[in-house]
């Protein structure tokens, strides 16, 4: 686990103190709202439909039991007893009062947490693979790189007021769990032909109203050049990115309009000009220090195939289903990584109550080397669980309703807060997700359907990642009435693709039935154990379109 050094402690404490003074000046009228708004946004504080919303950073999605307990405490003391885990591995509190936010930031700082880089037009918190340091195929733990980028980007004077927000993701595995191709810059740790480890650099991906898949900027970047290359890439964007139209200000538009080759030429020229600068990846001592913090925990030797596990699986079919669906291979024999699904049937996707947070913290402390990871799919991972302890973990989670065996299945739905919370939303997302979940609640039915990701956004900004859902749902407002566009074939992984629209939208009440129709058609069409996405890629849009619009034809 990463630990703050003295510099980090001081930086976060000073920032919290600074914001306390700014809030005081706002409350006594010394600052107007126009003056205060950019300051609060730089500290993760938004004003939403019902109240303020505080977005707290969980860098690389990694936290320990103490930090999760603190989030629970904040939820109870200053909010309404729950929080919402987001698609950027953060957590949002929906009801804080302005006067309490400085105390919340102090409480976060005590456990090495903050809200810096969670909003505003800066380099946002870097996201990474929830299976970092766990996945057997991983080349290198991507969080080391993510931490280097954090140190470089935090309060970077040149990049604090970019034309628009800037999101970077890092993955260390070929199988992508970070949506790396949907980021402003995506870094994939790779080996070149000589066996050296470096980065494949991707640029210009993103969702929102103009979704794009990232293109390759560099096939291989030596590790030592990382910060200099990022500096060059950001500098070219900062110089040429549009500032006249916020909808055209992301780097994807710049890359698209200039062409990736032209953009690359400018980045390489800037990179060359930076040669000899002191902006190098810290070698030796500092890098070793960071690397050591992310070193895998010392896991005691445990049974590789504990008899107790098989026996309990036979006795408890629900547990067997959960093990089958919610565990991942671990590089250490006898261990597994567990997904705690925050998608129990009928609950708001990604939400966790204080009680549930404490239960996750307790399970992590006892059975997962005191580590938890937040995923961009709005779930939580316990990265280091011994197979022999799985039943205790399951029971601990089941006691608070977090035993849903649905990771990657039709009910594991990503949904943004939508019109129930968000000032930008044009339609509801959460109740749509809940109705779909209820329709497919049967575990047997879900297993029969197999892997299927449904992602719902309540507006064009696409916080619910609908563009890359196997089935995407986009809620819009049509003359005061909610209308939902459906897209098919999206994919957030290494085979990234943007979903294609089926046709005219559907009403709120129609959506669960529409999803039912699409699933039925898939089951009719599939060959063998083909997944929904494989079937779609084989047969294309037409058969699904026919099923949806046959009556209208």
């Amino acid at each position, binding site marked *: 686990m990463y630990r703050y050094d003295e510099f980090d402690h001081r930086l976060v404490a000073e920032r919290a103190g600074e914001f306390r003074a700014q809030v005081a000046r706002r409350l006594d009228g010394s600052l107007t709202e126009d003056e205060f708004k950019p300051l609060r946004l730089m500290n993760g504080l938004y004003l939403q439909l019902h109240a303020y919303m505080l977005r707290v950073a969980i860098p690389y999605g990694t936290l320990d039991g103490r930090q999760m307990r603190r989030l629970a405490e904040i939820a109870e003391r200053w909010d309404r007893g729950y929080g919402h885990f987001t698609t950027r591995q953060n957590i949002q509190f929906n009801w804080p009062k*302005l006067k309490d936010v400085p105390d919340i930031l102090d409480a976060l700082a005590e456990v090495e947490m903050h809200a810096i880089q969670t909003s505003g037009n800066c380099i946002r918190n870097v996201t990474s693979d929830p299976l970092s340091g766990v996945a057997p195929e991983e080349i290198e733990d991507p969080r080391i790189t993510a931490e280097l980028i954090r140190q470089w980007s935090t309060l970077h004077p040149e990049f604090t007021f970019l034309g628009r927000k800037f999101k970077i993701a890092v993955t260390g595995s070929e199988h992508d769990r970070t949506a790396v191709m949907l980021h402003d810059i995506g870094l994939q740790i790779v080996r070149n032909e000589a066996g050296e480890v470096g980065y494949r650099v991707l640029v210009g991906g993103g969702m929102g109203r103009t979704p794009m898949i990232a293109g390759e900027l560099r096939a291989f970047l030596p590790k030592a050049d990382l910060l200099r290359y990022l500096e060059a890439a950001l500098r070219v964007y900062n110089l040429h990115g549009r500032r006249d139209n916020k909808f055209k200000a992301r780097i994807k538009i710049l890359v698209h309009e200039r062409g990736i080759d032209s953009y690359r030429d400018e980045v390489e020229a800037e990179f060359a000009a930076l040669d000899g600068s002191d902006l190098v990846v810290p070698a030796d001592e500092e890098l070793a220090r960071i690397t050591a913090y992310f070193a895998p925990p010392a896991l005691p030797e445990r049974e590789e195939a504990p008899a107790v596990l098989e026996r309990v699986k036979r006795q408890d079919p629900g547990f067997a289903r959960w093990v089958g669906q919610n565990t991942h291979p671990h590089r250490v024999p006898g261990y597994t990584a567990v997904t705690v699904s925050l998608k129990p049937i009928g*609950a708001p996707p990604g939400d966790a109550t204080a009680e549930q947070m404490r239960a996750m913290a307790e399970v992590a402390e006892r059975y997962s080397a005191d580590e938890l990871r937040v995923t961009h799919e709005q779930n939580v991972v316990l990265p280091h669980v011994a197979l022999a302890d799985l039943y205790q973990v399951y029971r601990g989670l089941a006691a608070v309703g977090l035993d849903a065996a649905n990771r990657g299945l039709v009910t594991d739905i990503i949904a943004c807060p939508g019109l*129930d919370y968000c000032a930008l939303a044009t339609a509801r997302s959460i109740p749509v997700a809940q109705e779909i979940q209820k329709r497919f609640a049967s575990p047997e039915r879900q297993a029969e359907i197999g892997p299927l990701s449904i992602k719902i956004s309540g507006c064009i900004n696409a916080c619910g990642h609908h563009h890359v859902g196997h089935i995407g749902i986009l809620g819009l407002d049509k003359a005061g009435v909610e209308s939902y566009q459906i897209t098919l074939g999206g994919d957030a992984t290494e085979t990234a693709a943007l979903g294609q629209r089926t046709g005219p939208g559907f009403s709120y009440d129609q959506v669960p039935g529409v999803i039912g129709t699409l699933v039925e058609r898939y089951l009719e069409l599939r060959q063998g154990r083909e997944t929904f996405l494989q079937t779609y890629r084989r047969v294309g849009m037409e058969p699904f379109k026919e099923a949806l619009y046959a009556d209208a034809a």
Partner: protein
Amino acid sequence: MAKAFRTSVVTANDLVEGTSVFLGAEGWHADIGRAMLAFTPEEGEGLAALAARFVEDNAVVEPYLVEVALEDGRPVPHLRRERIRASHAPTVAVGAAATPSRAAERRAA
């Protein structure tokens, strides 16, 4: 052609609490039922000007007019967004009320 004016109220967010509030005769209220009504564009401008004074006094932020219908004398926003906002809560159960029944049963036990 200019859009016809519809009966409106003024809403904003309370500076300290962040909650949605509505401008009434005695100040700002959580209950939209206590909001003053504007039946003409001039009355709408008057309410907006009054709200702006509260912004200057740091009582509220981001005021705007919300179109409403009157149902049994009570203002009800035309837009779903504003109806949700006036209700002060999401349309779904949240927090402990939304947790699956097993957890609730355990708490009750």
